[in-house]
């Protein structure tokens, strides 16, 4: 017979026996501890609920403790960064003049700007003849220099010019100057020009012969020979001035930038101008300039006017050949001839030389 659920009901006899067997109770200390804990919990809960502001006071105080160091640190960081920024700005201002006096890489000097420092009169002339350089560059690129086309002058003139070139070359070699040959002019002018950097030497001039130079003369009015040579003559002084004046520095890149494609000189600006002059001048002019430079004290001349890339072995005809001792009227006659023959480059070059030689002549103005 199975036990029913009723038999699982509480048996009074077993309950009585169990009650009689043991009336074990927890110790009174345990009772007290448990009741105390219960009261403590209730008291703590009521404090947390009733005294909400008091309970939240410590966290607020903790937060305020963070505010002070954080704010101090922020002020310090801002102050230090501001002071450093100001110092850096001052440092930049102080370091800019020397930095400006540094040679501008791959930028030719402004031959138009240097005559301005030389004399107002020449500056005026220079400004009148200045033209944008980009057409000049394009012209230069187009001008593949065929030597056969470039010789407008007589063979005698070439021979004479060659003699002068050789003499000049000898003189330059005596001065320890590397002379750039006309045929080699496109090789390493930078090294000869005292390039500080080891950058590959750019082509100093695209065309080695005066004919090409003359063909592009209409477009190369930006660098007239006269102001350039004048600037060359006064270069020691103007370069020194320019290195000391920040204004000249700011002007130099503006004026020099257009000339960069033509000159392609990587050396310092003060070195690029002579190179340009050397390319734009004829052999007699170079000889003249060389003699004038020789009048300078040797160290100054060498330092201020470093060796320009000289044209060289090939004699360079000039359009004013035979007019050196002639009166201005002869110059004007030949100029008129060039105009009639539509030889604008020759005419411009001749005009530039005329202006240089006869600056007071009414036609030169």
């Amino acid at each position, binding site marked *: 017979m199975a*036990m029913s659920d009723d038999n699982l009901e509480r048996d009074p*006899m077993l309950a009585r*026996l169990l009650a*009689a067997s043991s009336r*074990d*109770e927890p110790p009174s200390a*345990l009772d007290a501890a*448990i009741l105390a804990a*219960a009261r403590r919990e*209730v008291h703590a809960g009521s404090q947390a609920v009733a005294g909400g502001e008091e309970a939240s006071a410590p966290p607020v105080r903790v937060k305020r403790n963070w505010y002070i160091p954080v704010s101090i640190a922020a002020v310090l960081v801002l102050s230090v960064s501001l002071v450093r920024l100001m110092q850096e700005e001052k440092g930049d201002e102080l370091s800019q003049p020397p930095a400006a006096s540094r040679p501008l890489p791959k930028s030719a000097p402004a031959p138009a700007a240097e005559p301005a420092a030389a004399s107002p009169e020449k500056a005026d002339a220079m400004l009148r003849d200045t033209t944008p350089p980009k057409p000049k560059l394009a012209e230069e690129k187009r001008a593949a220099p065929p030597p056969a086309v470039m010789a407008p002058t007589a063979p005698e003139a070439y021979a004479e010019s060659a003699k002068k070139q050789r003499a000049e070359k000898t003189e330059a070699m005596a001065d320890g100057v590397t002379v750039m040959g006309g045929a080699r002019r496109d090789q390493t002018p930078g090294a000869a020009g005292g390039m500080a950097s080891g950058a590959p030497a750019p082509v100093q001039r695209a065309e080695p012969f005066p004919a090409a130079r003359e063909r592009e003369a209409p477009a190369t009015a930006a660098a007239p020979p006269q102001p350039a040579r004048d600037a060359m003559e006064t270069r020691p002084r103007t370069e020194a001035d320019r290195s000391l004046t920040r204004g000249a520095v700011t002007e130099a890149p503006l004026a020099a930038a257009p000339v960069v494609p033509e000159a392609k000189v990587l050396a310092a600006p003060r070195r690029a101008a002579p190179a340009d002059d050397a390319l734009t001048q004829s052999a007699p002019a170079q000889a003249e300039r060389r003699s004038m430079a020789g009048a300078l004290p040797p160290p100054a001349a060498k330092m201020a006017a470093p060796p320009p890339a000289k044209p060289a072995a090939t004699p360079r005809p000039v359009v004013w050949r035979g007019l050196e001792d002639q009166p201005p009227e002869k110059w004007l006659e030949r100029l008129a001839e060039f105009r009639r023959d539509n030889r604008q480059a020759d005419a411009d070059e001749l005009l530039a030389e005329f202006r240089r030689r006869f600056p007071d002549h009414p036609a030169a103005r």
Partner: protein
Amino acid sequence: MDAATAVSDEQLLLAYRDGDAGAFDTLYRRHKGPVYRYMLRQCRNAGVADELFQDVWMNLIRARESYTVQAKFTTYLYKLAHNRLIDHYRKHGNAAMVSFDDDSEDHDGAPLIAEPQAAPRDEPERHLDVKQQAAKLLELLGALPESQREAFVMQYEGGMSVEEIADATGVTRETAKSRLRYALAKIREGLASWQ
């Protein structure tokens, strides 16, 4: 019935949850003996029973905020006690736990012992010394498996029904009933020799 017993356990715990410390005192006095004896019967060590007993009430105190009336208070209280006891068993090895899972005797229906006859118990001439019977009961109770002893103590000390025992111990009603049945059968069989 005095005012203290008029208030149910659930109401007392709700009152304590709301900040009435006196309600907890009443609740504690009602249940401290049975719970303590439950612990004492199960772990059979007074010191351990004290510790476990205190933990059970402290857990109740801490859990008062989340208490909601979902079951009878005794069920809730003994569930806390049971869980604490299980933790104690796990902490000190699983040997004692085996008996909780040992329901091999649980084949429902078949009586393992004969149903005790009421007649002999009611015969005055066969009255035995109550103290001797009580000692024998404790001896038999100690010999029971943990799960059966627990079910028996919950019923006779805590006054819980089979459903409440099942809920507190986390087993099905049938399992709780089976455990209780086997416990009663063994105890009655042991006491029969004294009757």
